[in-house]
């Protein structure tokens, strides 16, 4: 295994810093995930169980226009959010934990990539995968519904389509920061995946138990709070026990707090102060 003399010509390309280098990380995550059997299985199951049935119903049943109520029952039934949660747990589980386990942070941070770029890349890749289940199918379904509607109130239908895009986007974003946080707390991706899923499951159980005493507790369940959010977006109203400000605060904290934790965790543990 000796080093034999070869024709070696140094690379003469451009060596500038790249401002959108996080895109490279995101692309790498996306390509990696699209080859993962676990991710493909959840995407296929999710598409069949959540989207395909609704799609068939829309095509078969005559409808005058795209209705918010229909989209709310399709997306707010619990199955959609459950699959989104499951997919997020699988997609995000190894994003940081594998780098912790392999000491691969230096691969990124010794190459003109800052923590924010690294996290944006990892999150961007995960969001791209999530969008295959949470964003594009609902939009496609809404478009199909508009294309097959019998009435001519396309403006109203377009409004519902916009709301659907918003709902899809919010669900796509909602679970990823929490999953990244769990991934940054362990070197084992299985722990991260189970931790993400179980954290949401436990919150749902706690909400269930305490809602016997006060119904406001239902808001701490991620699935319930998403369901309330869908009501708010599609129907413009919330259940009597849900305060709009409190719901916004809870949903925002599910996204912002984990993102801050994972940033601090990487900065303190792997890069230095």
């Amino acid at each position, binding site marked *: 295994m000796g*080093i034999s003399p070869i024709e*070696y010509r140094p690379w003469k390309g451009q*060596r500038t810093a790249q401002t959108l280098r996080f895109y490279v990380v995101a692309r790498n995550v996306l390509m990696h995930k699209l080859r993962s059997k676990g991710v493909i299985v959840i995407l296929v199951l999710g598409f069949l169980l959540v989207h395909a049935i609704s799609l068939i119903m829309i095509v078969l049943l005559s409808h005058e226009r795209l209705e918010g109520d229909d989209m709310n029952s399709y997306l707010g039934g619990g199955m959609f959010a459950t699959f989104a949660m499951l997919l997020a747990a699988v997609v995000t589980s190894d994003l940081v934990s594998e780098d912790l386990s*392999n*000491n*691969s942070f230096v*691969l990124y941070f010794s190459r*003109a990539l800052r923590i924010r770029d690294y996290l944006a890349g990892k999150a961007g890749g995960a969001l791209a995968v999530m969008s295959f289940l949470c964003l594009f199918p609902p939009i496609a379904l809404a478009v199909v519904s508009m294309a097959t509607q019998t009435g001519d109130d396309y403006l109203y239908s377009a409004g519902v389509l916009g709301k659907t895009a918003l709902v899809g986007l919010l669900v796509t974003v909602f679970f990823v920061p929490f999953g990244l946080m769990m991934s940054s707390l362990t070197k084992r991706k299985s722990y991260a995946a189970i931790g993400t899923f179980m954290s949401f499951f436990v919150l749902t159980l706690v909400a269930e138990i305490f809602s016997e005493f006060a119904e406001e507790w239902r808001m701490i369940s991620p699935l319930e709070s998403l369901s309330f959010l869908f009501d708010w977006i599609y129907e413009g109203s919330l259940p009597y026990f849900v305060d709009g400000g409190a719901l916004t605060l809870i949903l925002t904290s599910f996204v912002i707090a984990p993102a801050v934790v994972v940033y601090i965790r990487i900065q303190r543990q792997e*890069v230095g102060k």
Partner: protein
Amino acid sequence: MTARGYSADVIIQARALSKWYGQVIGLNNFDLEIKRGITGIVGPNGSGKSTFFKLILGLIKHNAGDIAVLGERPWGNASLHASIGFCPDYESLPADSTGREYLSLVGRLHAMNSTALAKRIKEVVELVEMGKALDRKTGGYSKGMKQRMKIAGALLHDPRLLILDEPLSGTDPLVRKDIIDLIKKLNREHGHDIVVSSHVLFEIERMTHDIALIYKGRAVASGDISAIRDLMNKHPHNIIVEGKGVTALAKMLLEQDYIVSVAYNNDRDSMTVQVSRPDDFFSNLPNLVDQSQCSVTKMYSLDDNLEAIFKYLVGR
């Protein structure tokens, strides 16, 4: 970001540099000037070598003093990484990626496009002789293969400055010789300035005569290796050799005039060799291994001798 007052010939300059982690001091009032060519950083484990490298790369921020790398301050200066290639001392390859995937990611992080990148990957893996293993998962690589792939990753964007942290650690003698030859070639034929660390002085000596000795966070000596070597040669040097059939090698070693003693450790697969002239030992070992038909899997020097020299240098 450019640091003033540094000579063009100096690639790294640290002035009164200090870094501490809470109560632990990583570097303490550290002064060092590294010029072009190959420079060896030698120090026992925990002496501050890795901290120094992290500061060079701008991965951590210094608490006091000043550091300039290629005339620029590294902290918060991400664009400087375009001119530096880093090979860490620990395993840092993504285990579930192939060598090609790893190098592709590294290349894209350096803004290399696909056509140029594919060509460059081919060149670099030929240089480090990893062409056949390029499409295998890095998790299945041997220690030597991982070191080569890490060096390939550091080389890929053709940086002016290569930082190699313990590139020989854990490798067998033949791979060690190949990597030493590669490092020399990268400087001599391709013009890379190289800073290479080791806790074994004699490994560094085979690559360069310009060294800096680090001990307990301070640069205790720097310059030509010969003066340090004279000091070292007054003390026998202990080297552990492990592998299958080393008994035959032991017999051949005992016939050499630079061998003081050979002693088996817990079993007959491991022995401690005490040598008076380590350079002769390291030069002749590949031939002796070949002649004795043994299989050496691991070889490393003990720190104690080097530690004694460091204590002498710091006047303790």
